[in-house]
C-alpha cells in the first residue's frame, strides 16, 4: 500500500535561518507531488507542485523553493526564513488525474 512520510512534525527556527522539509512517498511510482500551507481562515494555499522529477511549478512568489531530486521525494526549502513563513505545511501526492490527494501528517513551523 502507498504511504507518505513527512518530517519533522514540528520545527522552531529563528528568523534568517534556512529550512528544509522533506516528504517521501512509498508504494507508488511517478506520483504528482504537492506542498500546501494551511492557515486559519485561508484554507490550503498551494505553494508548489510537481508532475515529474525536476519539474516544479511555483504558485506563490516568496522566499520558499521546492525540489524533486528523486521520483518520490519532494523537498521544501528556504535560504532565510521570515516570520511570515510560520504555519502548517502539508505534503500530498496523487496518482492518475482523477484520484484524490493523500496527505502527510504535516509540519508545524514556528519562526521566532
Amino acid at each position: 500500500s502507498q504511504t507518505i512520510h513527512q518530517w519533522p512534525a514540528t520545527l522552531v527556527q529563528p528568523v534568517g535561518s534556512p529550512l528544509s522539509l522533506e516528504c517521501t512517498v512509498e508504494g507508488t511510482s511517478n506520483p504528482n507531488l504537492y506542498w500546501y500551507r494551511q492557515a486559519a481562515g485561508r484554507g490550503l494555499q498551494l505553494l508548489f507542485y510537481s508532475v515529474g522529477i525536476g519539474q516544479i511549478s511555483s504558485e506563490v512568489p516568496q522566499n520558499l523553493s521546492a525540489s524533486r531530486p528523486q521520483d518520490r521525494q519532494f523537498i521544501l526549502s528556504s535560504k532565510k526564513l521570515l516570520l511570515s513563513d510560520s504555519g502548517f505545511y502539508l505534503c500530498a501526492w496523487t496518482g492518475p488525474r482523477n484520484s484524490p490527494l493523500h496527505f502527510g501528517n504535516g509540519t508545524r513551523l514556528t519562526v521566532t
Partner: protein
Amino acid sequence: AQSVTQPDIHITVSEGASLELRCNYSYGATPYLFWYVQSPGQGLQLLLKYFSGDTLVQGIKGFEAEFKRSQSSFNLRKPSVHWSDAAEYFCAVNMNRDDKIIFGKGTRLHILP
C-alpha cells in the same frame, strides 16, 4: 485566474436539519472536483469526487454533491446533519490540464444541539 470560492466561512445548523455548503470555481474547462472534511486536530478526509457522468455524486457519511456546469458550482449537501459532522469542509479543484489542485478557504460547520 483559476480560483475556488467557498463564500461561507462559518455555517451553523441545528442537529437534524439539512445542510448545503457552496463551492464555485473559475476555470475554462470542466475540472475534477472534490470535497474534503477536516475534523479538529485531524487530517483531511475525502468525502466525494466528480470527474464526469452523473452530475449528482454520493459520498461517505451520507453526503452528496451536485455539479452544475452552467453555474460552475459543486455544492455539498446532507439531508440531516449529526453532531459529529461539526468540522471544516474544503472544496478542491484539479485543473486537469496541468494537475494543479487548488482549494477553497473552507467552511467551518457548527452544529447546535
